[in-house]
């Protein structure tokens, strides 16, 4: 047992925290207010090797590993959660291409992703396939040396800014076989819909995608035919650790702001931090977030060592996102009216963190995964 970060991990923490506080935090309110995709932030992340942290340098990656990646994501999300989710999905897509892609696919896409030429997107969800992801209906019909895609995807993060999108589609209807494809923007029949108006993460790009007789060469398939769900679930296992750290970052920022406020704000002749009503909220949030972080680091460490981590990732995600939501809620309460107005970042944190119990597997899906692992 050793709860220390390595020197390298500490350096990543310091570097990313510096960047995020100096560059991302000051712009976060404006990014949110204008629902603006912060392309300049993604460029800065690329400049520091933070968009390809899970594959080696021969493909343009920095191969920092899952633990350093988790720390970096936490620090970015603490400053600007919209930037954080963009970074998370790009890293996840890069990792999936590295793990399952052909040499040619790796050489083409990985340097683009890590270099910030465009984001990565992951298109699994459909209007009729949310938690029941396997029930997707986008169909890829085999036609000679091509596949022709028809169907639509919704809620696709980074969709409008992607240089490559992993698209999951049925390649056989009976028995059902799902395969993954790599699609570049601009190919005929591939259209990006308009952006969703969201409660939070308003600077992140969320769109629908549609495929209308969209023809791709069979070399665009990622992995083998029928391997789509395996690729998707493996990406999501890693993605869940990322979302756990995103929630931890947002919630830690809320807790820090609430703690500072409780020290300064005076009512009834004393700092409100002297009142147990306020202290209890801070103590519970801090305890929950420490527990969340330990669960999340445990999952990341298992991933780093190639041990099975599916149950641990689900535990980390459900715990961290729910604890994070509670902490952000409590932080708004500590600030009272000031928590509700845009002069302080607390209301944004509360809106931003809300989605973390929903995307990359709802809390309900995480509990299914966990209860199955209890060998019911």
């Amino acid at each position: 047992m050793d709860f220390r970060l390595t020197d390298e991990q500490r350096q990543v923490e310091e570097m990313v925290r510096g960047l995020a506080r100096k560059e991302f935090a000051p712009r976060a309110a404006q990014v949110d207010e204008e629902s603006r995709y912060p392309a300049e932030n993604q460029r800065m992340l690329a400049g520091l090797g933070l968009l390809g942290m899970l594959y080696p340098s021969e493909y343009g990656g920095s191969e920092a590993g899952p633990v350093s990646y988790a720390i970096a994501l936490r620090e970015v999300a603490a400053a600007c959660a919209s930037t954080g989710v963009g970074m998370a999905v790009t890293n996840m897509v890069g990792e999936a291409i590295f793990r399952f892609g052909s040499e040619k696919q790796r050489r083409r896409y990985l340097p683009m992703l890590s270099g910030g030429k465009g984001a990565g997107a992951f298109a699994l969800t459909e209007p009729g396939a949310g938690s029941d992801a396997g029930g997707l209906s986008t169909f890829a019909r085999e036609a000679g040396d091509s596949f022709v895609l028809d169907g639509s995807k919704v809620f696709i993060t980074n969709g409008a800014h992607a240089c490559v999108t992993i698209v999951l589609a049925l390649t056989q209807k009976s028995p059902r076989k799902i395969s993954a494809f790599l699609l570049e923007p601009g190919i005929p029949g591939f259209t990006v819909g308009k952006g969703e108006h969201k409660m939070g993460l308003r600077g992140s790009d969320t769109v629908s995608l549609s495929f209308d007789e969209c023809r791709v060469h069979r070399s665009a398939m990622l992995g083998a035919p029928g391997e789509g769900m395996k690729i998707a679930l493996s990406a999501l296992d890693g993605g869940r650790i990322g979302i756990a750290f995103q929630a931890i970052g947002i919630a830690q920022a809320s807790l820090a702001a609430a703690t500072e406020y409780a020290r300064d704000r005076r009512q009834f002749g004393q700092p409100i931090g002297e009142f147990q009503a306020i202290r209890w909220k801070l103590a519970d949030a801090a305890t929950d977030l420490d527990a969340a972080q330990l669960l999340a680091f445990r999952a990341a460490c298992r991933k780093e060592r190639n041990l099975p981590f599916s149950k641990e990732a689900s535990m980390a995600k459900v715990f961290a996102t729910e604890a994070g939501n509670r902490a952000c809620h409590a932080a708004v309460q500590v600030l009272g009216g000031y928590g509700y107005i845009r002069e302080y970042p607390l209301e944004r944190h509360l809106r931003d963190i809300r989605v973390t119990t929903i995307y990359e597997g709802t809390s309900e899906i995480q509990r299914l995964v966990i209860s199955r692992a209890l060998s019911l």
Partner: protein
Amino acid sequence: MVFDLTDEQRMIQETARNFAQKEVLPKAAELDENSRFPEELIRQMAELGFMGIAVPEEYGGAGMDNICYAIAMEEISRACASTGVIMSVNNSLACDPILKFGSEEVRREYLVPMASGKKLGCFGLTEPGAGSDAGSQKTTAVRDGDFYVVNGTKNFITNAPQADTCVLFTMTDKSKAHKGITAFVVDMKWKGVSLGKHEKKMGIKASATSSITFEDVRVPAKNRLGNEGDGFKVAMNTLDGGRIGIAAQALGIARASLEDALTYAKDRKQFGQPISDFQAIQWMLADMATEIDAARLLTWRAAWMKDNKMRHSKESAMAKLYASETAMRAAVKGVQIHGGYGYIKEYPAERHFRDAKITEIYEGTSEIQRLIISSALLKG
């Protein structure tokens, strides 16, 4: 970061689990029912080195680390929470302060027999008027040559009826408030030491709890732990470690609730299927399992920090607060999953429920833990 156990830690886990399942678990219901002190189990645990796990071998202990201690506590408490607390008080509250603050002579005389399990210790801090406000001690110690003369009453003292030795807190200078507290090691057989009646408790019924009265008890000055006025520091430092033990005890109780509920849910059929097939039940089990893992990581982190001589007051408080509240929630769910069977003594779920409650109260209530944690946060 490394989350693996060392070989030694894995070994003690296996030893403690085997012993707990084979020897302790079959007796737990009977011990509870009869409020019987498990003397024979304590003797066996002494042989296994469980009564002084983190005490160096030269002082009669097993010479292991505090993670080993937490692991063994969890396993014993999984089988019987009463047996767990007897062990925890001896390890954390009796052995640890003597190891840290006692003179070499006092260590030889009192620590060696306790750490090896030949004798049993207790911890006299709480008084009728000094619970969470432990600084408001009324028991007095007045210097008289090479002795102190002690008068006062302690209550809710775990292990008191069986204890040979007491780590006792007294007021030596009332004008200095908590800085006037002084700690001593007291032999329970000394003249003037007497036991009050055994408390009848909701849970942990096999552990004995009583008050102790001190009437003109002459305590040699050499039995003082630290200097005059160091007592509050000794108590707080000791409780930082003790809370790791109680967190681990709570973990054991929570695990008992989960494992028993899991067995029941797979077996029990309603509406034509095992109730474990219903999401209502699955959700409770998933939450119990996740919270238990979180609690264990907080507990092991605090133990690791203690082993590495890092300040760990906040982390011990977090572990104790979170693990004890997890145990209570898990016990509530465990009873609920059993339905009516959770309410009767044929199943252990109701015992876990009664046992879990104390972990939110002793060695610092949840409220005291939140004070400690929020103070650390607000100090920054």
